[in-house]
């Protein structure tokens, strides 16, 4: 592989790995406070799966970028992370000793983000099965087996909240509107995707997955009787809100500063420590 292709592929893998790590980290914050104890176990397990997937992608990236997975996951500067910004926001209440955290947090938002992200990730991994880079195609095959359970979990909660009367449904509708620009930001290309496509390492760009995703999300909205935040126009889509981009270039919001500090705190204490 030519040097520029290797570095573009490494960079692209970091985008996926960061998405999975950051969502896994945020969702793991529900451990202990999910709506019921069974869900606590299930949601924590899903979060752990995502971090496991991140590890696989980091290992692939580390081979290409001549470093190691831990260094990639926890040793970069904050603006060298490329996850979509929608994944970095907190959905749980942040503990406050005065008790001010009570009533904060939004389970509907956690459910909606997780499910709609999983629908995106399903399209992305499906495409990656056709990558000519065999280690990637092989890893993705394993990851997809686990993701099937995630989708089943997501659709069950999506339906449960949408069909509930009152607060659950109101919150789900609110979450959909609030998350929409950020979710559209998932489709921002990573630098070098054109090169990866022309080299056959990717079947198409991330942006090309958007219409298939909109189609699927609309199906789930219609089935649950939820208002869909975009409109179909002939062969295309009319998107009223601008997507929230920048994440794929390393530009993030204040939630990221907080998360980065928490996430890397232990490692920064003693970067050379061997665990």
């Amino acid at each position, binding site marked *: 592989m030519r040097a520029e292709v290797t570095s573009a592929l490494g960079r692209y893998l970091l985008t996926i790995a960061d998405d999975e790590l950051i969502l896994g980290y945020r969702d793991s914050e529900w451990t202990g406070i999910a709506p*019921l*104890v*069974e*869900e606590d*176990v*299930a949601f924590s*397990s899903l979060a752990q799966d995502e971090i496991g997937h991140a590890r696989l992608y980091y290992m692939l990236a580390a081979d290409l970028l001549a470093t190691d997975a831990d260094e990639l996951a926890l040793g970069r500067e904050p603006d060298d992370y490329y996850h979509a910004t929608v994944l970095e926001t907190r959905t749980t209440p942040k503990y406050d000793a005065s008790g001010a955290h009570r009533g904060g947090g939004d389970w509907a938002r956690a459910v909606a983000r997780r499910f709609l992200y999983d629908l995106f990730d399903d399209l992305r991994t499906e495409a990656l099965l056709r990558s000519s880079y065999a280690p990637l195609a092989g890893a993705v095959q394993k990851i997809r087996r686990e993701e099937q*359970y995630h989708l*089943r*979990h997501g*659709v*069950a*909660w999506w*339906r*449960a909240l949408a069909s509930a009367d009152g607060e659950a449904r109101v919150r789900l509708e609110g979450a959909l509107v609030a998350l929409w620009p950020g979710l559209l930001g998932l489709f921002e290309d990573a630098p070098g995707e054109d090169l990866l496509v022309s080299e056959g390492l990717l079947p198409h760009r991330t942006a090309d997955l958007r219409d298939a995703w909109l189609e699927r999300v609309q199906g789930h909205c219609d089935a649950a009787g939820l208002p869909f935040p975009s409109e179909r126009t002939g062969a295309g889509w009319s998107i009223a809100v601008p997507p929230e981009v920048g994440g794929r270039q390393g530009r993030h919001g204040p939630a990221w500063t907080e998360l980065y500090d928490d996430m890397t705190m232990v490692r920064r204490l003693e970067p050379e420590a061997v665990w």
Partner: protein
Amino acid sequence: MQIYEVFRQEREGDPMVHVGNVQAPGDDLARQYAREVYSRRGEATRLWLVPRAAIEEIGDAYFLRPPIERSYRMGEAYRVTVQKRRQLAQEGAHES
């Protein structure tokens, strides 16, 4: 919200054994929860989920015990039965 009783088979051919229960808002999530809680490390070849409401319980001791003492019918003190029991107990002791 419903409670489902969970039965697990650990190896093909083994009996289904009651292992506990899960609470879930519906069948789909109950399946997920049972998988996470009772076969997280691949302990099961098969799980059964039974809504607790579907269980017909008999807990009436009066109904369950025969009203007339009939232990003479059970042959517990027959010489052959006693010998067989002793033999089985010994074999068990050898195995362990």
